Each structure stands twice: as C-alpha cells, then as structure tokens.
C-alpha cells in the first residue's frame, strides 16, 4: 500500500478546470461501510495507478434508489434517480464505473428510461480492460497458485450476463480458479438483494448466506472472491458462522488485484 490516494470530486475538478473521463460511482456501502471502504480504496488505487482520469461525486452522490425500488417504493426510487441524473448531467458525465453491481444495474438499466443515458461499467469490467491493455502487470503476485473461488453477484451475473470479467481477473492472478457447485447462471444468491440487506430474513430453516458459504467452503479455497460489497458482508458473516475466518478470506476482486500488483 505504497501510493498515496489522490481522489478528486467532480466539483473540485470543475474548480480546477479539469474534465475527468470517468466518474467513479462509489455507492453507499463503499462510502460508509468500514469493510467496503477498503474495496473503494482498492478500486481508486487501481484507477490512479493506471492513470485513469476519474473523479467521484463525493457528498453530491446519493443512493441510486435500488433498495427502495426493490422494496416497492417506486416514488422514492424515482426521486433519487431523477436527482442523481440531474447531477450527473450537470457534470456532463459520459462514462461511469461503479463499485457495486446494484448501482451498476440501476444506472445502466433503469436510469435510461428516466432520461439518464450513460456508459456504465462494473469495476471488474474496467479493471479487466485496463489489465488487457497492459496498464497493470502482476508478476508472481501474492495469490499465485492459491485456490480462489468466485461468488457471482446476482446483479452482475444473472441480471446483466457478466460472468467472465471477474473470472479473467482471477486467472490473471495466476491463481487456481475453483468453481462452486452452483455458479454463473446457476449461482446462488448471498441473501442480500431485493432490500433483504436492510431487514431480518423471513422465518425459515436456514440463512441464505450460510447455505451459500457452504458452497464456497466446499471448494477448499483459501479466498472467496466477491464483486459486490453486500455479497462481501454476507459471505464474511457466513465464514464467521463456520468459524473459518482464520483460514478463509473474503475479498473483493479489486482488493486481490491491488494487493497482487502491490498498489
């Protein structure tokens, strides 16, 4: 963790007369959750290392409205969406990278109908592009030869058909990618989506994250890779449930890349 982070907000860029190419949409978890903030920093470090011209909205960013929409509060969703679109358009944002598949899905698929057309990438997609362009290289990184399994976030995988970008990144770590028995289109949800993150689960026999963590542990991997801050929380809790936190780590792909590239 050598490099110092220098992240500017859009407002700061405007004041300095700069026009960033990419807006990094951090998301609420990435902004406020202590664990997720580490993912945010890893993404920012990677962008900075690759000389991507980017900025954040900072205090002007608000929730995309995803949990409100999925809980049925279409009013609140559209209020948030229209305000966000206004701000994004105010800064003439064209391209957005998100640190969360829920933000990614909402801005990519649900904002256009409300007038917000942007090119939207999930961070694993952008990082994968950057690596393919040779902007980051990993040689004998920290994860070489290690077993890593990837948990598909529903809103990246099934919802948007992106299964490969995160997997290509894991392969670039020289790690051994081990698939869970349910993966890609058949992947099992971590239990957080559809606003479940913000409520107790309904009465049942088991927690969904425990069920999913069983899949992950069965692969014998040392690292459970995630691509979503909510999945990350759920899987981390699941690993704790099985008291495996000493031997199994849950990490975002961005963290793995940043660590392996020694950023």
């Amino acid at each position: 963790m050598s490099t110092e982070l220098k992240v500017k907000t859009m407002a700061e860029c405007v004041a300095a007369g700069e026009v960033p190419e990419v807006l990094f949409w951090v998301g609420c978890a990435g902004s406020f959750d202590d664990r997720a903030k580490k993912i945010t920093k890893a993404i920012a470090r990677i962008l900075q290392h690759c000389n991507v011209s980017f900025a954040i909205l900072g205090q002007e960013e608000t929730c995309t409205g995803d949990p409100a929409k999925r809980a049925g509060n279409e009013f609140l969703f559209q209020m948030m969406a229209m305000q966000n679109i206004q701000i994004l358009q105010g800064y003439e944002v064209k391209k957005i990278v998100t640190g969360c598949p829920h933000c990614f899905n909402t801005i990519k698929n649900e904002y256009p109908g409300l007038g917000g057309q942007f090119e939207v990438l999930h961070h694993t997609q952008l990082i994968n592009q950057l690596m393919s362009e040779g902007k980051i290289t990993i040689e004998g990184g920290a994860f070489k030869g290690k077993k890593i399994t990837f948990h598909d976030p529903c809103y990246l995988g099934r919802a948007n058909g992106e299964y490969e970008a995160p997997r290509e990144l894991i392969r670039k770590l020289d790690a051994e990618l081990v698939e869970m028995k349910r993966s890609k289109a058949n992947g099992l949800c971590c239990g957080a989506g559809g606003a479940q993150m913000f409520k107790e689960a309904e009465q049942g026999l088991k927690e969904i994250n425990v069920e999913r963590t069983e899949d992950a542990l069965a692969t014998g991997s040392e690292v459970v890779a995630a691509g979503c801050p909510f999945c990350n929380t759920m899987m981390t809790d699941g690993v704790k449930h099985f008291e495996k936190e000493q031997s199994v780590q849950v990490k975002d792909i961005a963290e793995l890349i940043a660590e392996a590239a020694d950023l």
Partner: protein
Amino acid sequence: MIAQIAFVLLLATASFFIFKRFQFVKRNILLGRDVQLAGEPSQRWSTMIRVALGQGKMFTRPFAAVMHLILYAGFIIINIEVLEILIDGLFGTHRVFAGIGGLYTFLIATFEVLALLVLVACVVFLVRRNAGSIKRFTMPELKGWPQNDANLILITEILLMTAFLTMNACDYQLNQIIIKDASHTYVSDAAFPISSIWSGVLEGSSQNALHLIERFCWWFHIIGILAFIVYLSYSKHLHIILAFPNTYYSKLQAPGTLNNLQSVTNEVKLMLDPSAQVPPPPDGPQRFGAKDVNDLSWVNLMNAYSCTECGRCTSECPANQTGKLLSPRKIMMDTRDRLEEVGRSMDASGGEWKEDGKSLLRDYITEEELWACTSCNACTEACPININPLDIIIDLRRYLIMEESKSPESITVMFNNIENNGAPWAMSAMDRDQWRNN
C-alpha cells in the same frame, strides 16, 4: 353414415367447448393492464424459436429434457395422423392416405416408434413424479388438483398411445387373415413395426372382432384427443400452446431491469418541478402496484396461464431452499387460480367485474411470501418458458408500500434514511467522501 353423423356432431360439440374455453382464457388475460414492450420483433421471434420451439432452457436438466422432448416431438408428430382421422371420420373412408404407398408406410412406422417412446416417457414421468424423491413434486402447493392434473394427463397420454398401437395391431392382424380381400385397405406390414410385435394377443380373433376393436380404438383415440384439447385449457397443459406467445412476449431487457412506473414518473416530475408538463394518465387514475390480478399486466396473466408447474423456479429459489414460505411457482399458480375465480364470477354476473371482497394479495399471496424475495432472478433464469414471477412480487410489494404504506419496520427505516440522508443507513451525507482521507 351414422358413424359420419356421429363424428360431425362430436367434432362440432368439441369445437364449441374448445372455442368457449379459449375465449374465456383470452378474456381473462386481457383483464390485465396494457404494457409497453421494448425490443424488436426479430428478437422476439428468435427468443421464441430458441426457448419454446427449441426447448433451449430445458437442457439444464438433461434427463428430463430428453424425456420431455420425446413427449413434445412424439405428440406433435403423431398428431399429424389426426388429419387422416378427420378425413376418414367425415367421409367414411378408412386410412385415406394409404394410397400414397411407401411414404405412408414410413410415416405410420415412425408414428409407431414414437408412440412407444411417448409411452415409455409417460411411464417414467409418472413413476418419477409419484416416487416422492424429487422435492419440487412433493411441495405443498402441488397437493390435490395440481398433482392429479399432472397424473391424469400422463395416464391419458398412455391410454391414447395404447389405443393408437392397438388400432394398428388390429390392422396388422387383419392383414394376416384377409390379405387379398378387396374391402380391406391394405397397408404394408412394414408400417407396423411395434404393433405387430404384440398383436399376437389378438391372434385367432375373428375378422369381426378385429374390426370392432379397431373401430373402438379409432373412436377412443379421436375422442381422447378432442377431450384432451378441451381439458388442456383447464390444466397446466395449456403451456403446450401458450409457451409460444409467452416466450415471444417475454422480457428482452437485461433481467435485472425493473420497469419504471410512468404514473410515478409524472408525479415525481411535478414534485421536483411544479411547472413540468406531464401527460394525463391514459385511463383515469390507477392504483400504484398490484393488489389484484387486474392490476397486473396482461403478460403477467399470460405467464400465469402458461405455467407448467414444473417447479424449476422454486427449486432454484434461495428463499425457498432455506425454508422460507416463498415459492415462485406458487406465485404463478395463485395468480392463475385467482384469475380463474375472477373470470368465473364475471361470467356469473354477465361479464361484469364485481368486487368479491377478495384479492390476489393476502387471500392468495401473503406478505410473508413477498418479503422473502431477494430479487435474485434465479426463478426467471430457471423457467423453461421465460415466466417472470419476480415481476408480480415487485408489483405486489409496490401496492403494499405505495398504497398501504405497509412494510417491515426496518424497511421503513431504510426508506426514511434514503429520503433524509441519501443513504439507506443513518449516515451523514457529509461523511460520504471520508474514505478518501484515511
């Protein structure tokens, strides 16, 4: 001549019932709200060809897929024979197409092989369904009628195929007795590869008895098929027909996309800018979200009529797998049951929609079920005919929230946080960029 008159009467009666039932189903589906469908017809056709015609999504479970393919192909192909039956029935002919010779022999032989395969597949399905070893076939929502419906149709198919093969077996035996008799329409023995094998049981029967059995099977077969078509519309087997329009009209956007309610857009625009110009609502004020079937879209309702009750959605559902009450299959079955109920009561009151004090929400689908959904799209991915239970779940949630302000307490807190702090937690907007500094 009497036989011909009886046949015409039979055909007319069956057509009448089939027409009435299909009108009923169509009227019910059109009780749904109109929807704007995105996407090009070419994409829709290719989805239909891949998913419905090509059974593309069945093959995630190869064994069931192959068995189902046999039923599907077998049933369609064998029913080419219905054309001959219709002509024979109307004009009093017997095997009218036999004159085309070699091709006819080939066709009938193919039908026989397929009939045997269909028979075997039906027996396998029957055993598999009732053995109790597959969870999705033993779940509560299948108890009673749905379970019987499935069995009944399998048994009917077995009977129909048996009748078909027996009919051919009679003709084969007749061949052996009266091969040179001009009154007998001769069909080459080669047309009966399957029925000839077991036609031995009929050996020694008189010519009359064979004619009688042959006629009985012929009538049984055609009555069976007509009854099947009428029955279809009451049953989950409607998917045989509706799978096609259902996949044609299925969602083309990325599965993660939820529609934006236009009525809400207009209100929010006015709220943010009171001088905004918004179009008036198309047909008077509508409810936000769905309380009953007529608040859903007609695509949702067609989905409900198309559902095969296979339970693939439910077996992939994370909520259901972990013991929650939610079952996406039940969402579809409830929607259909309620729609049928509404349809029947409309018929009883001269086509008028009358409040009956019941609704899809609560009388059929409970809040507990709705709140268990993670919106993960496993159900929509699993459905072999692109049904979307999630759409209905979200629309019912919308009604709960926007019309009744009813939500689990923690969800209300989340809403308030978003409204006040711009984040689902009670965090200050001022701290949003703090991560940069440490």
